[in-house]
């Protein structure tokens, strides 16, 4: 099948951005958008619809198997991991690729997501005290540790905007874990920032959960953390660590 790909190309230093269209043919039902980008970008002779050379396309990737979060982008308007998006899913054969919109664009599909690292520093998402293992495997902690820091949740969140006080789901995940696991004294600090930068800004619309490519149980995580934090309710969860 032949796919028409429209890709938003931009170069910050040259202050230009434009849509470029090219065609890509494959019959492999497992072919994904990231591998397609690798293939055309590595081919110095690949041409666009108008006969111009495509040249190297800017995009980030690493694992190629949905485990590292590098390749998040907008595919037909939806925030997704390109390596987890198969071309065959797009039955109409037209695919539009754009960089995530909530982050500054570096080049083509690359955006600068360092604000996510900054947010985690701002809420001081690190442990104040050492812990020991709970009585039984802590599946919720395992889930929360799987966050890819890909940024898809920030992209769809109605309440998140870079520079404003609410820091979004990506910062909430590690903080929620701390709220749940630290002892009351140690949790004091993270509790304060959890409330201020996270809980109070979140409209609980769950858009983040729907988009999360790692399928993190965000609703459940918020529910537990909020119960512990806001209503000082000791969840089953917290008890496991005492």
């Amino acid at each position: 099948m032949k796919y028409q790909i429209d890709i938003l190309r931009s170069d910050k230093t040259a202050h230009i951005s434009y849509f470029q269209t090219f065609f890509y043919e494959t019959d492999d039902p497992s072919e994904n958008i990231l591998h397609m980008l690798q293939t055309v970008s590595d081919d110095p002779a690949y041409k666009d619809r108008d006969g111009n050379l495509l040249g190297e396309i800017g995009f980030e990737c690493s694992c190629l198997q949905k485990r590292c979060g590098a390749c998040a982008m907008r595919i037909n308007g939806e925030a997704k991991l390109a390596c987890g998006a198969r071309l065959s899913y797009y039955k109409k054969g037209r695919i539009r690729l754009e960089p995530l919109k909530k982050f500054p664009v570096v080049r083509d599909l690359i955006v600068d997501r360092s604000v996510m690292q900054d947010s985690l520093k701002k809420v001081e998402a690190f442990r104040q005290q050492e812990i020991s293992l709970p009585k039984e495997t802590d599946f919720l902690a395992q889930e929360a540790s799987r966050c890819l820091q890909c940024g898809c949740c920030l992209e769809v969140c109605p309440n998140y905007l870079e520079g404003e006080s609410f820091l979004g789901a990506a910062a909430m995940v590690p903080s929620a874990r701390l709220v749940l696991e630290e002892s009351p004294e140690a949790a004091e600090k993270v509790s304060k920032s959890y409330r201020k930068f996270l809980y109070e800004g979140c409209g609980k619309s769950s858009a983040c959960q729907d988009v999360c490519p790692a399928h993190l149980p965000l609703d459940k995580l918020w529910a537990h953390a909020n119960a512990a934090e806001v209503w000082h309710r000791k969840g089953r969860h917290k008890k496991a660590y005492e």
Partner: protein
Amino acid sequence: MKVNIIGAGLAGLSCAITLSEYGIENRLISLLPSERAQSSLAEGGINGALDTMGENDTPQDHFQDTMKGGACLNDPEAVRVLTDRAPEILSWLIRIGVPFQARDRQPVLRKFGGQKKKRTAYAKSSTGKLIMSAMISECRRWECAGLTQRFSHHRFVRLLTEPITDRWGNSAVSRADLLKSVDSRNANIAVTGVRILDTYTGSMTDFEGPVVLCSGGMGGLFPGQTTGTTLNSGSVTATVFAQGVRLGNLEMIQYHPTTMKIPGKRCLVSEAARGEGGRLFIMRDGRPWYFMDEKYPEMGSLMPRDVVSREEYMVREREDTEGSVCLDMTGIPKKAFLEKLSDLRDEIMYYLNLDPMKDPIPVEPGIHYFMGGIDVDDHHRASLKDLYAAGECCCRYHGANRLGGNSMLGALLGGRIAAESIAAESSTAKTSTHAAGQRPGHAASQAEGRTGARRFGISVSISDEKPEKLVILDPLGKKEDPALAEQVGEILQKGLGIIRDQQGMTEAEEKIKALIQQDLKTGPAAGNYEIGVPADINLCRLQLADAIVLSALERRESRGAHTRSDFPEKSDEYKKMTIAEMKNGKVQVSFRPLREEAVKG
């Protein structure tokens, strides 16, 4: 003094955290943030004789399994330290919050290939990801305290070096001698810093200070054929090799017995699948033949990886078998499957459209790990002064074949030892908070962080560094040519398969030599090639490829991951390490004897 760490996977993070605990400032430089490092892909688990399963496991057992798994090519002193310190590393991981699978507050351990006892701590089959999350969070403490500074989206360009001068400040050797010395006695060269390139802006910066390479394995020499990430291009190892750094055991490349082909790479089916009871078979006379169980009744499909991959290759070559080798996980109890392997099951269902709880899945061996790499000593020092290496980029613990679960351990330990050696040599280092069993408390802002740190006995020395130097142009800043990389990958894969021979390897060597000649004529370094001062990343990579093939050719025996049809037996004569070095612009391979075994008891 600030220490420059290249790579932010497990080894890099471990080094940064330990340096910070000693109060030594460090820069954590990586192509992409830590979440994207190959360490995040590690699945099955990490080893340590914690003995929580009532099997009387000890570091000595761990030592013996590791030596045996490595076909006794490992340095016994190194393995001794690895296995003795493993319980300390695992306990530390638990304390910083890695949510391992647990029962009664103890980690549950599983069995991995080549192990006689259950020794592998795990978290489903996402162990690497969960360890990385906890390490990233631990590192953040030190970022907030101003001790660790991150440079994500930066690429390593080259080491900055200078000749070691005598005590009157004169160069110890003349320029002409120096060029020779890069090749012969590179102890005359000191690393003074590192040049990096900001991939977002294209600008280059020189940083002073010792350098710790934590840049991962050489998967990028085999594009599309490994289980790893695209970040580990092999270019760091290639560059430092051209700059005179010594490498070891390059021929030891691990093929993992269970992988599946997916677009752009091979996807690992974790050893945990076999650890929990998965068995390999192939169809023979219309019936499944469980060849591993038949040949190795004790360990079955859980033999070390080199053995399993080789057996898979051999049963497929037979005339009476048909189809591919399959992994049969249908015998694993449902509860264990859902609790311990649900993520692996999701992955298999997504890529193969098969449910491993119901159907056997086809698997193939694929390139997975590099036992060889930068040669380091007991202190993780490489062959140039003030250069260190840790993690998969270095050659230290795994001999001729790495056991599953030992590599994350080696990366964590290596990063820590490199930092400890730097601290021991540094005048500004304070007693580590870690060693003293203390941790700095709240570290809000940089300033507060510093007082906080001081309260716990660390004083942070803010170095009066010269301002960073911006570099205008360095030809090494260019990325490798993907078409050439692809071509070299095919040559290497063909010559260095699971079973090798003189003819195949000689052909590969000739092809690579021809590519080198061509590059010398037409590449960016054409005409003004200066030994020891690389100017062309493609040439560096070709020289590294050459070194791998030459190392394999020189080892005229079969041992661990290196199996030769023309020399099928293990030979005591070759119980030594292959050493590859650049001499007068050419790759040279020699051997170094192992240290005598210091086996306790």
